């Protein structure tokens, strides 16, 4: 259970990115967060694992207050993140990138000299096999195509055995066909592994296809919270503005 209470973030330059957001996300839900660029979607996700420090408000994961935690390591390792630009370490091998998902669990000193246990190594290989990239394990991350890199990103997330996955525009840099492969992986993690997914999406059609629930942000406030079916044309214009036209992605 993820609980967000009255979350506000004001950047040093005065921009109010989040304005009193309150949410409850039960375990096992696939939530799509939609909204225009600059509506606060990315900031919301980054506040949850405290890559960005909230200005005020509280966030709980399973009754542990994330916002009050001194040691972030045990919290962050339960929350995996998938990024728009994949954020792989380009010069490192695919396997190293996947193994880095264990950094929150391993003995810090051992990991500094790239020593991982046999269990971690076996896990990394099985996760690479799960995203269909086992034969690429020794290649440099930047030699892979965009879709393959995002699948490595997903394998890295799987390494954390997370309760919650934060996906920040995971398919915005990908073509429609590849986008579905990546979202299918997220859906599978949600359905089979019971992980809660909080996914920022640009395309409403993708939200309709994958999400149980849609939350729309506008200027840092929640303007819609419901099932995908409830978003009709009027709602759509409310979220994206009067001039917006719906674009479908196959």
């Amino acid at each position, binding site marked *: 259970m993820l609980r967000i209470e009255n979350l506000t973030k004001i950047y040093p330059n005065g921009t109010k990115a989040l304005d009193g957001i309150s949410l409850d996300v039960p375990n096992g839900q696939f939530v799509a967060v939609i909204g225009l660029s600059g509506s606060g979607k990315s900031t919301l996700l980054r506040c949850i694992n405290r*890559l960005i420090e909230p200005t005020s408000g509280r966030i709980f994961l399973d009754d542990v207050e994330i916002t009050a935690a001194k040691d972030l390591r045990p919290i962050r390792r339960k929350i995996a993140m998938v990024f728009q630009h994949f954020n792989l*370490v380009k010069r490192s091998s695919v396997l190293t990138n996947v193994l880095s998902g264990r950094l929150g669990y391993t003995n810090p000193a051992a990991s500094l000299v790239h020593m991982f246990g046999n269990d971690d190594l076996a896990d990394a290989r099985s996760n690479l096999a799960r995203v269909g990239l086992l034969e690429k394990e020794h290649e440099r991350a930047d030699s892979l195509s965009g879709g393959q890199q995002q699948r490595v990103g997903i394998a890295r997330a799987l390494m954390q055995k997370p309760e919650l996955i934060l996906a920040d525009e995971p398919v915005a840099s990908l073509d429609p066909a590849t986008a579905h492969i990546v979202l299918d992986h997220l859906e599978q993690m949600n359905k089979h592994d019971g992980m809660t997914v909080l996914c920022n999406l640009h395309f409403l059609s993708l939200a309709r296809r994958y999400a149980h629930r849609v939350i729309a942000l506008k200027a840092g406030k929640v303007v819609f919270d419901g099932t995908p079916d409830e978003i009709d044309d009027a709602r759509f214009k409310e979220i994206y503005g009067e001039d917006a036209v719906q674009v479908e992605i196959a």
Partner: protein
Amino acid sequence: MNGKDQKNSIIAAVLSAILPGLGQIYSHEWRRGLVILIGLTAQAALFYGVGAQWLIGVMGLIWLWNIWDAFSLAKGIRVSTAAPIILILILNLIVSWKVTDIHIPSFQGEQRKVIGNIVSGLGKPDFISQKTRQITATAKYIVIGPGAPASIKQPAVKHGEPSITLSPSKVEKGTIITVTGVDFTPQSKGSMILLGADEIPAGSFHTDKNGRFEMKFVNDRYIPGDYFVQARMVVPTGGWSLSSTLKDAAPRMFETIYLAFIGTALSLIFALPLSFLGARNLMSGNAFCRAVYGLVRVMFSVLRSVEVLIIAVIAVAAVGIGPFAGVLALAIHGIGALGKLYSEAIESIEHGPIEAIKSTGANDLQTVVYAVVPQVVPQFIAFTLYRWDINVRMATVIGLVGGGGIGYQLI
């Protein structure tokens, strides 16, 4: 700037006319005002110091711009700073041309020959020389007088070995002696030496294609007795050997390269960890980190700004003449130079991977090792090799002040 903040333009202009920058400060543009005030004052002092007072007059143009700027700022308009900056650059170019005595006609005439000699000398390094041996043949003659031997026995002539005969062999002062030599190396040059307490050169000779030569010299000895003359010839024996210059210089050259190598290595050991503390993107977390960042950067600047030669002189005073002093100088200077380059390499990396590694729960050290190090390694290697390159040259100069290596050989 909104209406409430607007200032009286005339007052601003007058203030800036009295003291450049004051009008800008009046409009709460502290930075701009201070830069104008300090910059113009320092620039004027500089021109005065190098004896270019006439340029201070030209700076009046900037003073006029400053008044206009203050006037506009008070109305909330920021005018472009391009014009005064370009003017200042041009004035400084003029001054530097004069101060450094750039005088193109100097290249003509005598200097050209000197340059030619230096460059051609550099183009013909003396690394190897032919192996040689010296062949000699000796003969005696008598200066007649009381006490002189009646005759001398010439050494037996062995056929095939170089020998010389003298005619006449009994002489007085002023007699011309003809020397005939056989079986020397053909077509070569040699020299004739009068042996005695000193070796006195008595001319040179050139052999024909049969290895024969004939030459004459005038006897100027008058004390009766027997005297020796020796023909000497240096001939190549085939094969080459390292020249004596190289034999002396080579160990020093290797010393220089190693001096530069260990100097670079020592600066690397210190610069590497410090550079992470001097990278703004890693050290912006809290006030303490930012203070450490500032401190490290200032330290790099200080180390870098002290000339290596000066550090070397201090090091020589501290540990004595020798390569160790040179190593210390290169290492200390290198920490500043490498540290700055490393820090900037770290600052130019992509932020995304750092975010990704942090979000897995990695601690700060793990984040550096997994997200930062892989991104900076190629640049670190390039910068380090470049530093070594510079240090080899610097090590040469450091030798001149007693820092060991090839430079020490030069003095």
